[in-house]
Every structure is written in C-alpha cells, then in structure tokens.
C-alpha cells in the first residue's frame, strides 16, 4: 500500500474523534518511525489543514521525529530523583556501551522515582539500575 493511501486510512480512522490530530500523529509515528515532511503534507491534505499548522504541532512535541532512526533506542531518566540516585555518574559507561549502535535518549521521569535509576526500552521499564545492569541492558538492546 502506498504511503498516501495508508496515511489516508489512518486519518480516516480518527476523523470522527474530537481533536483528532494527536492520535493521528501517534499512529503515523508508530507505523513509519517518524512524521516526516511528506507525512505532514499528506495529513494536512486529508484534514484540509495547512501544512504549517500540522508542522507546528509535530515540531512542538518531543515524541514526534522528523527523520526515522533505525537504531534501537534506550530512554534513560535524567530527572531529579534519578540524579539523586546517581544516574549522571553512570552515563559515561552507558555511552560507551551504546557506541553508534544504540540511540540513548533522555527522558524526564518514568514514574519509578523511588527505585531509580530508571530506563525504558519500548514498552519495557527497568528500575534499580546500576552501572553494570544499565550497560548490559544497552548492549542487549
């Protein structure tokens, strides 16, 4: 199926909802790994919005990426409670374990603040990490 048709389908699937754009963007991001300029144009057309309107929304939120990144991703919490439990001193080794192969991104709180440091891979959460377990999590990503 062409991208145009698929995005048309996604938009149609949410069109009846009040304020459909965020659910649409989530599904496009999920399916194509990004919401690129082409997708923005297609979504804008299907909703009868201007491309600028859609781009403004896409670029506002951290979750939507302009380009796909094929690398596996590990999100590491860098917020206060995890800092208090030492995440910053573990980041050098984490970067080393990641190299160019794994994408490490910062998130600000996963709601596991009493048992940090915490990380997330896809739908799976990890807590009480130490330098070793974080590195092996990244190596196995």
């Amino acid at each position, binding site marked *: 199926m062409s991208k145009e048709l698929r995005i048309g389908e996604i938009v149609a699937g949410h069109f009846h909802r009040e304020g459909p754009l965020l659910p649409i963007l989530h599904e496009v991001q999920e399916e194509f790994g990004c919401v690129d300029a082409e997708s923005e144009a297609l979504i804008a057309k299907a909703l009868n919005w201007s491309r600028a309107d859609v781009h403004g929304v896409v670029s506002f939120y951290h979750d939507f990426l302009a380009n796909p990144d094929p690398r596996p991703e590990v999100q590491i*919490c860098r917020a206060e409670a995890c800092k208090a439990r030492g995440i910053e001193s573990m980041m050098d080794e984490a970067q080393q374990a990641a190299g160019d192969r794994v994408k490490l991104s910062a998130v600000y709180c996963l709601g596991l*603040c009493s048992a940090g440091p915490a990380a997330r891979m896809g739908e799976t959460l990890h807590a009480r990490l130490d330098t070793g377990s974080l590195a092996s999590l990244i190596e196995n990503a």
Partner: protein
Amino acid sequence: MTQTIVRISDDALARAVGADALAAAFEKQGCDVQRTSSWGMHWLEPLVEIDGKGFGPATLADVDAILSGTSDRAIGAIEDHPFIARQQRLTFARAGKTRPLSLEDYEGTGGWSGLKRARQIGSDAIIEEVTRSGLRGRGGAGFPAGIKWRTVANAVGDRKYIVCNADEGDSGTFADRMMMEGDPYALIEGMAIAGEAVGALKGFVYIRSEYPDAIRKMERAAQLCAHIIAPFEVEIRVGAGAYVCGEETSLLNSLEGVRGEVRAKPPLPAIRGLFGRPTVVNNVLTLSAVPHILGEGGANDYEALGMGRSKGTMPIQLAGNIKHGGLYEAAFGVTLGELVNDIGGGTHSGRPVKAVQVGGPLGAYLPPEQFDIVFDYEAYTAADALIGHGGITVFDDTADMGSMARFAMEFCAAESCGKCTPCRIGSVRGIELIDRILAGKETGGGRQPDRIELSPVMQNAPKRGRTAEEEIELLTDLCETMKFGSLCALGGFTPYPVLSALKHWPQDFTGEAVAERELGTVPGGKGA
C-alpha cells in the same frame, strides 16, 4: 490439596524490578497467582503476599524458600508493617488489596456507591458535599474543587467536559500512575460523579506517553465499565512528551490537536475550556478522592482530617535517595522531617541528607534545618516553597546543588512552550549565567569582560568584567524577572529551585572562599 494463593503486584514499578518473572515462577510451582495493585512499599518490590504475609524484595531464587516458609525475606503481616499502619489511606484505600481491572473486586470494596449516591442526590448536593469536604486540587495549585465545579455547573454551554489531568510530569511523583494502574475504576467513578455534578457527558483522561502501563489499563478499564457509567463516556488520550502539557490550558490545546501552548487566563477553562466549552480540569488524585467523599458521611470525615485550609489526606510520594521510598498517604500536617527520617528511613546510600526537593522540578530545595515545616499548602507558600503534587525527592551530601540549579534552568529551557520571553529566553540566559558562575568556582569567581562588553557601543556594560558577587546578583535579578514576568508556573516557578539552592548552598556555586565573603551581602543570601 488447595492451591496456594500468591499475590504479586502488576504495577509498573513492580514489573520494572522483575514481578512478571516472579509471578511466572510461582505459577510454575502450581500456585494461583493473582496480580494486584501495589501496596506502595517500593523498596520491597517485588513484594509477594501469601495469606496476608509479605516477602520482599523477592527474587527468583527466593521462590522455594517463600513457599516452604523459610524465607529470610519475610516481613510479617503487611497491614501491620509500620509504613502501612501509620498511613491514613482514603484515596489509596484499595492499594495492594484488589486486582486493578476486576469489576468484582471493585464492587466488593464499595466501588460505584459514590456514583449511585451522587445520582440520587443530584448536582447541587454533590457540589455542596465536595465543597464541604474542603477538597483542593492535587495537581499543584490547590484550588478548591467544589468552587471549580460550581463555576462549570453555572456556566452556559451546549456541551461540557470533564478533563482528567494525568500528565504527571513532575519528577519525583508517581501517585497518579499508581492510581491509574492500581485502581482505575475509582478515577473513572470520580469523573462520572463530576459529570453528574456539572452536567457533562464526556470525559477525557490525558495520560503522558511515558506511562505505557497506565495507558493500557485505563483504556481497558474504560471499556469494561462503560455500561456502568453510561450515559457518561470516558476517552483516553496520550500526550507526546511535553512537560508543559500538564498545565491545564496547554493540555486543552493539546487535546484539541494544536500546539501545546499555554493560553492566557481569563477566560478560565471552567467558562471556556475544551473546544470553547465549560470544562472541569482536575488532577487524577483530586478526582479519585471524590468517590470516598460522596459516600455516606464521607465529606465530613474528609473535612475532619488535616489542618488549617488543607483538608483531608495527601498521597505523598517518597522518592530519590531514600531508604524506604514509596507512596505514603497521610492527613495534612505531617512534618518533612518525619517523612524523610522516620517514615523514609533517611537516605538509601546511608549518607547524611543534604537537600530535599518538594513539589517536583519547580519546587524549592529545603535543607535539613527546615525539616520542621508541616505539610500544608499555606505553610509551604509562606516558606517560598510548594507542595505541588506531593513529591519529595531526597539528596544525600554528594549532591552538587550548583548543577541541580543549572538543571532547573535547563529543564525550563527544554520544556518552555515559548509563549513568553522571561521563560523562553530567560532560562537559556540562566544556564549560561550559572555555567559562568560554576566555571569561576576554581578561580575564585568573577570573570573578565567579553568582546561584546568591551565594544564602545555597549555603553552600559561594565568594562572591568564582573565579580562573583555581581554575577550572583545578576542571576537573582533574572530569577525575579522570570518569577513576575512569566505567564505560567513553568517560567514563574523555575526560580524557586534555583534561588533556594543558591540561598542554602552558596558554596556549591562559587566555592567556599567566595561563599564566606558573600554571606549577608547576596540578596536572598543566608544572612539577608
């Protein structure tokens, strides 16, 4: 032989430390494993419960010993554990006790009785009871829920909405997450009661995307109880990683599908909210407290707890470098020292406590000297601090408060919605300024004038550079501008962690020598 019933939480935190594998192991041993909500004793997760007795933190290696009764992980009867016994759980009454998605468990523990009663007594009486209970918004601002509901009930609109703010962006907080994952029907019941009170038929729950488990459970719960709450309807929406979307007007924009920029108030969302219609925006904990309040006599019971104008109980979250972290629901009035030392058991690392941040990333850092401050909205405001969403993040003496202050500015810069200058630009200037100050720590502080300052057109720029004292004065001045010139609390409250860190730990900014010299001279400094 009867099967042993083993209860293990399916809360995200328990799962993040191995509860799923543990549950599978007990099943393999022929046990009947029930996945319940979490008791909130997070240092003991995964916690295994058999006949009311607890074992934790349990690993796969402990399974056999637990079943044969010889495990050294035994903590005795869970309900008698001091951490639980000392609490007054109203909002979290079911925590640890029920299976989150079981309608049978929910009804069996008094579920839906608040909604039933609400439907009998009608709009006016519901709002009257919520007002009488003294319930205030648990999302941060502490606005009385009853007054907000009254405004929406009186507002004219062809449709009205109930919006549940489940963005829980504050680090150090997780009570909303635990509520949604552990007792989702209580939140939905609270929303349905709010709908009954103000005349709304539609509710949205806006959940941050960092909470996959909560999203999944709330979606399922909304389906399973649709017939009970009808004609009221609940729809789950997922955020997209913007902290500022926790601010209520930004959240409404996000729900509408536009940029999550903060709106100027007035008009209040209660008058013109979602799609321009009258809208109740309440935090998860505010709405989840409602079913209890609407129970027979609930409003009076609630009002009888707490102190001053802070009524009822607050689910407090003990986080960061703390030995006994988790969820602690208590009546207002408990002191910070009790929370951190007696209940929390001090630091996880065993080192002395250096600082405690209360109220998330926008909350002040408090030193142990202020541990007698009582949990009360007004007491915290008076101390230039805030309760916020009730998160308490503990730091030991290895924490560097200069870098924590820098982080506060960094976070503000990353998450600013961009609408107003003091926040959008001030936070970036704040990072640069703190970097300069920290860089001067080794050299004794101060800095040389830069190329721009030296150029003749910069007539007002000092040509001799700045002393450390002057740099700090500049930072204080910037913070004042952000405090009074920002539209919302992101820009307006970021100065609290920065200034409190500067006030109590000046040596972390400028080094010991300068801090000594400065005492008493820095505006907002210790001696001021």
